[in-house]
């Protein structure tokens, strides 16, 4: 600042001093301003930055919370997935088991249908036989009376059909029943080896007895389904066979199935 030419230092010292004071006052104000402005600016910038950081921190916290929620949900979903996986495996196992059961039941059904079919065929060939016509038959065939009456007696006792059965209590299948009768009546050539069961012996019955093409009353007739039946020649009503069938002890027409072969029995 230049001093005006009208004021000279020599003449106006008070005025000059006043100017100097004003100038210094202004310089002090500037000094304070220059010092405080950067500080204030720094404080404002730091405040703004801190505020931004706080907001960012809040957002981060919110995102963390959200992430934690998602993590929990993911864990829950994983557990559910594991549970469903286990259930699925269990159900697959069950399905496999049911499939096997169905296959087994289908096989049983086929077997039952086959048995039913056989039973139907057998039922068509059933011949009525009781004590009355047993007596009549016995009068015609004196040698067979005892055999016929014994079997009718067993029928009266309702001896059951039992595959592999070996006693009166549990029942018999057809060959083991024939073997039982032969053993009871002491037919010749029929002996059980030591330790041999009735069922085992019955399987070799076909091979043990001598074959014949002209069966007589008391001989054995073997059929493809495994039946071993005693043959009875009845010239009046036609020949029939008597033995164990799934219906129990039953008399059937001898031609209910094509015989596999005839075997001669030597009765004592």
């Amino acid at each position: 600042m230049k001093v005006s030419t009208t004021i000279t230092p020599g003449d106006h010292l008070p005025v000059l001093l006043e100017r100097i004071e004003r100038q210094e006052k202004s310089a002090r104000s500037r000094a304070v301003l220059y010092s405080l402005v950067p500080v204030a600016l720094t404080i404002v910038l730091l405040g703004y930055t801190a505020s931004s950081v706080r907001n960012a921190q809040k957002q981060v916290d919110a995102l963390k919370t959200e992430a934690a929620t998602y993590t929990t949900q993911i864990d829950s979903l994983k557990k559910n997935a594991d549970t469903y996986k286990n259930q699925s495996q269990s159900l697959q196992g069950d399905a496999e088991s049911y499939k096997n059961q169905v296959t087994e039941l289908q096989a049983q059904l086929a077997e039952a249908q086959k048995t039913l079919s056989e039973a139907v065929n057998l039922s068509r060939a059933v011949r009525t036989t009781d004590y009355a016509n047993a007596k009549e038959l016995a009068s015609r065939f004196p040698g067979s009376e005892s055999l016929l009456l014994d079997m009718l007696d067993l029928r009266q006792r309702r001896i059951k059909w039992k595959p592999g059965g070996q006693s009166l209590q549990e029942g018999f299948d057809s060959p083991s029943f024939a073997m039982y009768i032969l053993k009871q009546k002491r037919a010749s050539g029929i002996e059980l080896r030591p330790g041999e069961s009735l069922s085992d012996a019955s399987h070799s019955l076909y091979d043990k007895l001598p074959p014949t093409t002209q069966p007589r009353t008391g001989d054995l007739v073997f059929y493809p389904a495994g039946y071993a039946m005693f043959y009875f020649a009845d010239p009046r009503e036609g020949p029939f066979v008597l033995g164990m069938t799934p219906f129990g002890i039953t008399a059937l027409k001898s031609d209910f199935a094509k015989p596999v072969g005839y075997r001669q029995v030597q009765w004592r």
Partner: protein
Amino acid sequence: MNMRAKIEFLKSAIASQQVTLHLQIALAAMLFVLGITVVILSFVNPGLILAETLKTGQTLAGTAVAANGFIPIFFSRRDKIVALRSLLLSYQHQQVGGLSPDAKLDEYFDQYFAKVL
């Protein structure tokens, strides 16, 4: 002009300028101490003023504030005070020594204030 008046005038001018100078030095020291404190705290205790993530920003801001403390020094009137004090001492020397007034000294006096003001 009265020598005594000039001496009194110079004393007043010097005193006024010294007040300004002291204020400038105080402000500079304050800014410097404040800036350095901020810088040191950013290293010693990063989370005290601002979050730890803003450590670098705090260091830079502290450095800027400390550097600002030196700015008033550039506007220092220490040279003015030295010049005025020389004039004052010269006048006092004349007065104490009973010397005859030096016209050259008055000329310097006028030149100085013409230049400064």
